[in-house]
């Protein structure tokens, strides 16, 4: 924990992250954003010729789609819903009074809106693609990026509550999407090496909730459904996942009715880059002053 706090303090002191008073909710400096922009250009350079269709969604999604996704079955502890004041003038008066007195929780009468904070960049994609009808026989590839929300306050700068995820999502046959996942595991390792980052790839699991979640964790690991690319940021013993490589089998295909032209259910896989984590890995490895970073790293990012 000390190492996490001291790295976070150093990031604040250097002005790279800006404190807001809430753990895991930070502003970013221009310099920090420049590193992320440069890394995203590197992603474009590596994956740009694959012909992915780019889509950008805001960091909120349709609550109905969120409900269908089943996110609350697996990760209720991480979800964030958007609530608003929907009362009349009288309600407004009691709200203000409640806020003024400060004894009661003024948010208790806020009502759920149709918007839920996006938990992963690809969540709004599946229903969008499903609406279009059958997927071409050769499958489809999408490029997404969004701020994502996960309710997990922490002093670890690599565990933020609002962070950006860049993703490629592949839909097609089993072999098509698992080849895509393998291709990006290889590419990911090469990309991080070209940035002078120490990486390893390991089998992983999502943070499923509760005891029942243990079973989902075991299932996921037994079937090699998730891999992560790990880089030391606040701990060498427990390096941080900076990329993840997920094979969903046909679960999203079945859930959203994603079919290929021949009528078979589409398999899907996604590859995600944790953009803040990658920037933090660079700052941690090469120092807080980008001008001091090795020439080869600077050339890869800004050359």
């Amino acid at each position, binding site marked *: 924990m000390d190492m996490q706090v001291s790295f976070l303090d150093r990031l604040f002191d250097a002005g790279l992250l800006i404190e807001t008073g809430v753990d895991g909710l930070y502003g970013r400096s221009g310099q920090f954003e420049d590193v992320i922009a440069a890394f995203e250009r590197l992603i474009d350079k590596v994956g740009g010729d694959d012909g992915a269709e780019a889509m950008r969604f805001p960091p909120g999604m349709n609550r109905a789609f969120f409900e269908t996704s089943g996110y609350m079955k697996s990760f209720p502890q991480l979800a964030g819903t958007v609530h608003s004041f929907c009362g009349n003038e009288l309600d407004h008066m009691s709200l203000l009074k409640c806020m003024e007195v400060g004894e009661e929780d003024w948010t208790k009468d806020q009502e759920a809106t149709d918007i839920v904070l996006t938990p992963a960049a690809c969540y709004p994609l599946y229903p969008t693609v499903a609406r279009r009808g059958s997927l071409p026989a050769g499958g489809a590839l999408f490029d997404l990026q969004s701020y994502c929300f996960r309710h997990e306050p922490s002093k670890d700068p690599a565990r933020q509550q609002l962070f950006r995820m860049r993703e490629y999502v592949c839909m097609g046959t089993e072999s098509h999407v698992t080849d895509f996942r393998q291709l990006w595991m290889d590419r990911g390792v090469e990309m991080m090496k070209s940035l002078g980052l120490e990486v390893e790839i390991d089998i992983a699991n999502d943070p499923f909730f509760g005891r029942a979640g243990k079973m989902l964790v075991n299932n996921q690991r*037994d079937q090699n459904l998730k891999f992560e690319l790990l880089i030391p940021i606040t701990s060498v013993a427990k390096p941080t996942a900076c990329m993840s490589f997920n094979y969903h089998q046909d*679960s999203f295909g079945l859930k959203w009715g994603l079919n290929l032209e021949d009528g078979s259910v589409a398999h899907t896989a996604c590859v995600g880059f944790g953009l803040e984590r990658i920037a933090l890995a660079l700052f941690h490895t090469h120092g807080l002053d980008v001008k001091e970073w090795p020439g080869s790293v600077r050339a890869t990012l800004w050359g």
Partner: protein
Amino acid sequence: MNETIRELLTRVGGLPVAVTELEDGADLYAAGLSSFASVQLMLGLEEAFDIEFPDSLLNRKSFASIAAIEQTVSHILKAREAA
């Protein structure tokens, strides 16, 4: 026990086929048992037999077939008797 397992499977398994038509050794995942349904099955078994699955048995293998479930539950019951 076999009957209780089949009843639970009918109630929470969400299988597209009739549970009565499944052999004891039939692969439940191939029959359409989802990860989430297997979790509900696990919770249902815990309640029905008043047992608690140890973490080591919370995996796909334990729920792969009706026979496998019987074996897993018997194993937990025996371990409890021995304790």
